[in-house]
């Protein structure tokens, strides 16, 4: 019987130092996949390596041996004694492996639940394995199911709707104030790393222009160059405040840079045009009272973090819905892959043939009621002989293939061709649809 297994480690089980040492660069993946493919117990494999996890998905007939071989492979490949990282390794077999892969693809196992980039990373890992043909027909199905599950989770839950990082919360709030950010300007006060990171978020949200001011003007200039923005001297900050829609302040100044009276004046010059002030510095750069002025929306780092925390709670609530979607899909998938066994397939095939034979025989006998007992017996024997002869060759071939790498492919083909189980065909149909979309 074939089994799906997962062996690997992630951000929950291993510190970054270990993850780093066990991860695969994209350039190494090819060799690694091929080497895993040569392990005696592994029939198919895919390697997923991101900064938060290193996992090998594989198909095998001997899960225990395969897991041991995979661990040894990781140790040999990266030249680290197994004992150094064995405690961080987890392995799943069968249902639990499938569930794990579905959860990873749906971003339920991510550091920040609901962040969508993991799906792209899995697709990428899958494509590389596909090209090298280290993933075969079982993992192919499994991964397509996983993509389908991830899509359902994204569409049917609100898991990735809310912003959970400080920068994305800030962008979200800006959109709540201004709507579309396309014609908006942002003023960065302070040209440090924090403002740079936040600025990138605003750029990808579409802000039109970036103006930067900094105590040391050169730093402002170089950042302005990078963002194709404009640098203004620190003394001209009021001019910057007058023209900006969004202001992001992140300096290490010990006093307030933007004060109440100053903003009252600026607002008059702006004709009360709304302004969004973000203060992500500690100690604060903007006098808190400024937030009381009409048409000014002031958020400091704590406010943003509180919202992010709330949103993470929301995501966790949605994650429960996602788990039940996964459970549902898991049952469907497991039903399919457990049907890929030789003996039950042969039994089902025989049963089907025999049913057809009996039905047709009965029909014929009822049309000819005056046949003798002997004639009936020989008809019975003849029909039986026909199906036995028809089945003989395919069944011998199948039994021969049972130890073969592609046995499941044949079993699946037989099940599909003779319609031996309905779940099987359903899955194929959905899969075709997904394939068409990818």
């Amino acid at each position, binding site marked *: 019987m074939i089994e799906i297994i997962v062996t690997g480690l992630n951000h929950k089980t291993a510190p970054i130092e270990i993850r780093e040492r066990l991860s695969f660069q994209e350039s190494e993946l090819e060799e690694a996949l091929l080497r895993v493919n040569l392990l005696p117990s592994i029939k198919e494999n895919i390697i997923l390596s991101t900064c938060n996890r290193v996992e090998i998905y594989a198909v095998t007939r001997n899960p225990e041996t395969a897991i041991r071989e995979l661990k040894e492979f990781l140790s040999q490949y990266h030249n680290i004694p197994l004992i150094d990282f064995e405690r961080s390794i987890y392995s799943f077999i069968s249902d639990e492996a499938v569930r794990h892969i579905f959860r990873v693809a749906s971003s339920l196992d991510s550091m920040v639940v609901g962040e969508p980039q993991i799906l792209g990373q899995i697709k990428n890992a899958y494509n590389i394995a596909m090209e090298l043909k280290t993933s075969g027909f079982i993992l192919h199905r499994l991964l397509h199911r996983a993509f389908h599950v991830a899509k359902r989770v994204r569409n049917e839950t609100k898991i990735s709707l809310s912003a959970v990082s400080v920068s994305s919360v800030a962008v*979200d*709030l800006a*959109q*709540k*104030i*201004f*709507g579309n950010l396309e014609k908006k300007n942002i003023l960065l006060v302070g040209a440090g790393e924090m403002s740079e990171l936040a600025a990138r978020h605003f750029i990808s949200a579409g802000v039109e222009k970036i103006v930067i001011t900094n105590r040391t003007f050169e730093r402002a200039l170089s950042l302005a160059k990078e963002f194709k923005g404009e640098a203004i001297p620190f003394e001209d900050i009021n001019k910057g405040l007058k023209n900006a829609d969004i202001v992001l302040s992140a300096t290490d100044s010990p006093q307030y840079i933007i004060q109440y009276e100053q903003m009252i004046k600026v607002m008059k010059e702006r*004709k*009360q*045009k*709304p302004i969004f002030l973000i203060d992500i510095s500690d100690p604060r750069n903007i006098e808190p009272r400024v*937030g009381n002025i*009409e*048409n000014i*929306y002031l*958020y400091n780092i704590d*406010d943003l973090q*509180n*919202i992010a925390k*709330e949103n993470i709670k929301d995501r966790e609530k949605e994650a429960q819905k996602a788990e039940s979607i996964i459970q549902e899909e898991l049952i469907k998938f497991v039903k399919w892959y457990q049907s890929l066994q030789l003996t039950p397939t042969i039994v089902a095939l025989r049963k089907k043939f025999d049913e057809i034979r009996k039905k047709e025989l009965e029909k014929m006998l009822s049309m000819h009621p005056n046949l003798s007992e002997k004639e009936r017996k020989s008809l019975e024997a003849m029909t039986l002989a026909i199906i036995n002869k028809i089945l003989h060759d395919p069944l011998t071939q199948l039994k021969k293939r049972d130890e073969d790498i592609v046995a499941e492919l044949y079993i699946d083909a037989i099940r599909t061709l003779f319609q031996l189980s309905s779940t099987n065909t359903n899955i194929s149909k959905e899969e075709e649809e997904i394939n068409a979309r990818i």
Partner: protein
Amino acid sequence: MNIYFFKIASFLYLLATLAYLAYIILLREFVSKLGRIIVSLGFGIHTLALILRYLEGGYTPVTNLHESLSFFAWMIIGVLMIANIRYRIKVLGSFLTPIALILMLFAFALPKEIVPLAPVLRSFWHPFHVIFAFLGNAIFTLTFCSGIMYLLQEHQLKSKRIGAIAKRLPPLQVLDDLNYQSLTFGFPLLTLGIITGAIWAEYAWGRYWGWDPKETWSLITWLLYAALLHQRLTVGWRGRKAAIMSIIGFMAILFTFLGVNLILPGLHTYANW
């Protein structure tokens, strides 16, 4: 016959209101679409009811309180449908449809028979006066709703609790734009309504203006909106102040329309409602 269609329209507005309220709770796309479909259907049938009443009565059906309320509701739904095309604010229906429904229920409770028209109402100018005034009022209903939404949304943003309400309402700037644009449409119509009213008054009573309570109150309403428009254009009033002002303006409209008719005696009082 027109009453029959009027009832169907009211029922459809009730269903649409329920759908729009369900949308606010569930935030499901198809529920909002359902609301839009039902409301359009209701609007079509309501239009039919008004045409039938026009044909049956032989006059534009805006002469008593039942007719006026029904007509006002019809205009509000019309404005909603136009706004739905112009703006992608899905919760708009959740605000406007209930208002129209309440007006319909009032109209429902009032005597609905077609009675012979009082002589002063048999005027060429009267229907114009009413249509302009109500169209203006219907657009100001939209202004009012945008003001309410603005205050709700602003409160969320200022208090830094971005909760369920904030998720359901459009951005502040969109609401402010809606507030301003609807004002620029509503104001000329209200002005026209008052001018045609004055002309009608000249035909009916031989004077353009007589400081009857209705006239006085429509002037107050007009001045409120004029002030809002002026402040917006010159001082750059916007946001919160404009939102509050548009809510006050709508209160004045309601008082002019209902309060004056029901409380203060005067020429506009519906004698036999």
